[in-house]
C-alpha cells in the first residue's frame, strides 16, 4: 500500500482549479488557431481572433479565461494500491474551496437547486471516481461552465434507430443549442451503458484532447463525419454564421442492454478547460 495524505490531494486540487481556469490547454489553442486559418467567413475569423487574444490575456495576467469559472468537476483515478489517509471527498472539497477563494475565481454553486443559496466557496465538487490497477492517483480538474452544460441533452434511442439515430440526435442537439453555448463548441458524446452511464461517458469524452481521435477506427471516422456535418450547419463562432461551429467531436462508448441505445451529448464551449496531475 502506498500512503497519500489528504493534504497532498487538497494542495493539488487547489492549484489545478486555478491553473485550469486561467490557462487554456495547448491542444485547444492549436485547434482554435487552425480553425481560424480554415475559416472562410471574415466576421467569423474576427471573432476567433478575439478569442485568441482573450486566452493570451488570461495567460499573461493569470486571470480567468471566462467569468464562469464553472462547477469543479474532479476526476480521480485511484490506484488500488493507494491508501489515502483521511477523507478523499473532504480533501477535494477543501482544495476547491482554497483554489476558488485564493485564486479569485467565481463562486457559482448553490446549496440546493430549489432554494438557490450560494455556498460561497464553490463547493461541493462534482466527483467521479475510477478504481484502476497500480499505486498512482491521477487527479483531473475540469471547471464546467453552465452556458454549455445547459445545452446538453440525453435520449434513450431504440436499437432500431441505429447509427443514423445517433447521428441525427447529435446534430439536433447542436442545432437546438445554436448560439447559446458560446460556439465554437466541443461536443462530448456518450453512447451505450445505462441512462446515467451515457451521461458520464459524454462528460468523460470532453476530457480527451481535441486533437486525439478515438483509438477505434470506426468511432474515429464517426467523430470526423459528425464534425464535418456540424460544421456544415453554418452556425459559426458565436452563432453569427461561419464554418467553425465545433472544434471537435469526442465519442466514448460502452456495452448496453439488448433493448436500448442511450445517447448523451454533453456540450462544452471554446473554453474547454481541464488540467491533470499524477501523484
Amino acid at each position, binding site marked *: 500500500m502506498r500512503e497519500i495524505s489528504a493534504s497532498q490531494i487538497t494542495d493539488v486540487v487547489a492549484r489545478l482549479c486555478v491553473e485550469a481556469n486561467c490557462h487554456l490547454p495547448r491542444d485547444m489553442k492549436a485547434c482554435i488557431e487552425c480553425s481560424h486559418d480554415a475559416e472562410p*467567413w471574415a466576421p*467569423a475569423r474576427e471573432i476567433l481572433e478575439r478569442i485568441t487574444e482573450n486566452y493570451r490575456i*488570461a495567460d499573461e495576467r493569470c486571470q480567468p479565461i471566462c467569468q464562469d469559472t464553472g462547477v469543479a468537476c474532479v476526476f480521480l483515478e485511484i490506484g488500488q494500491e493507494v491508501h489515502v489517509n483521511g477523507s478523499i471527498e473532504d480533501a477535494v472539497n477543501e482544495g476547491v474551496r482554497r483554489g476558488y477563494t485564493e485564486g479569485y*475565481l*467565481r463562486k457559482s454553486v448553490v446549496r440546493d437547486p430549489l432554494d438557490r443559496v*450560494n455556498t*460561497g466557496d464553490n463547493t461541493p465538487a462534482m466527483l467521479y471516481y475510477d478504481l484502476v490497477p497500480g499505486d498512482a492517483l491521477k487527479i483531473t480538474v475540469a471547471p464546467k461552465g453552465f452556458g454549455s452544460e445547459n445545452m446538453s441533452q440525453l435520449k434513450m434511442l431504440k436499437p432500431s434507430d441505429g447509427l443514423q439515430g445517433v447521428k441525427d440526435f447529435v446534430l439536433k442537439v447542436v442545432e437546438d443549442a445554436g448560439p447559446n453555448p458560446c460556439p465554437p463548441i466541443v461536443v462530448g458524446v456518450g453512447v451505450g451503458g445505462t441512462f446515467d452511464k451515457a451521461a458520464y461517458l459524454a462528460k468523460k469524452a470532453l476530457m480527451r484532447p481535441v486533437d486525439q481521435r478515438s483509438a477505434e477506427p470506426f468511432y474515429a471516422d464517426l467523430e470526423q463525419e459528425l464534425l464535418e456535418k456540424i460544421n456544415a450547419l453554418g452556425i459559426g463562432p458565436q452563432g453569427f*454564421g*461561419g464554418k467553425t461551429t465545433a472544434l471537435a467531436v469526442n465519442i466514448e462508448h460502452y456495452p448496453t442492454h439488448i433493448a436500448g441505445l442511450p445517447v448523451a451529448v454533453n456540450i462544452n464551449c471554446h473554453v474547454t478547460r481541464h488540467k491533470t496531475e499524477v501523484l
Partner: protein
Amino acid sequence: MAIRVTSPLTREEARKLHSGDSCLISGVIYTARDAAHKRLCELAAQGKELPLDVKDAIIYYVGPTPAREGQAIGSAGPTTSYRMDAYSPTLIALGETGMIGKGKRGPEVIAAMKEHGAVYFGAIGGCGALLSKCVKKAEVIAYEDLGAEAIRRLEVEDFPVVVIIDSEGNNLYETGRKTYLENFT
C-alpha cells in the same frame, strides 16, 4: 467602422441601431443576472422603487469573477440571455433600452423591444478577460448578498458589442448564418 454608443441610451438612439452593427459602448451600464432580475421584477410588481434607474439603461448580463487588487473588475463576459426572458419585457416597459448578453431571445422579449424601442447587443461569450479591460470602474449598488450576481454599476469605455436584434426585430443569428451559407456552400 464601429458605431459609438453612449449609455444611458435613449429610445430614439436605440431605434437608430441596426442588427449587425458593431458598436463600442461608453458610459454607465448596470449588471444583473437571473436572481437580480427576479428581485427587480418583484419590486416592480409591488409598485416599489427599483435600486437603479432603468429608464434609458443598458443592462449587462454578467456575473464577474472577483477583482484582484488594482483591477476594477475580474473577468466579465456575458452569460446566456434566455434565462432573463421571463423578466426582460417588464424592464423594457419600464424604460430599459439595451441588453447585453449572448444567445437567443424569446418572442415575448422581441415583441417588447419592438413595441418600446430597445436593442439586444451581443458581447463575445467566453472572452471575459479581454472584456474586463473595458471596465474602468465597478461598484455594487444592490443585492450584495447575491455575490457575483449582485447589481453593479459599471463605467465602461469602448466596450465592444454587436447588435444582434434591433428594435425592428431583425436578428443577426438568422441573417448572419443565412448569408454565410449562401456565400460558402
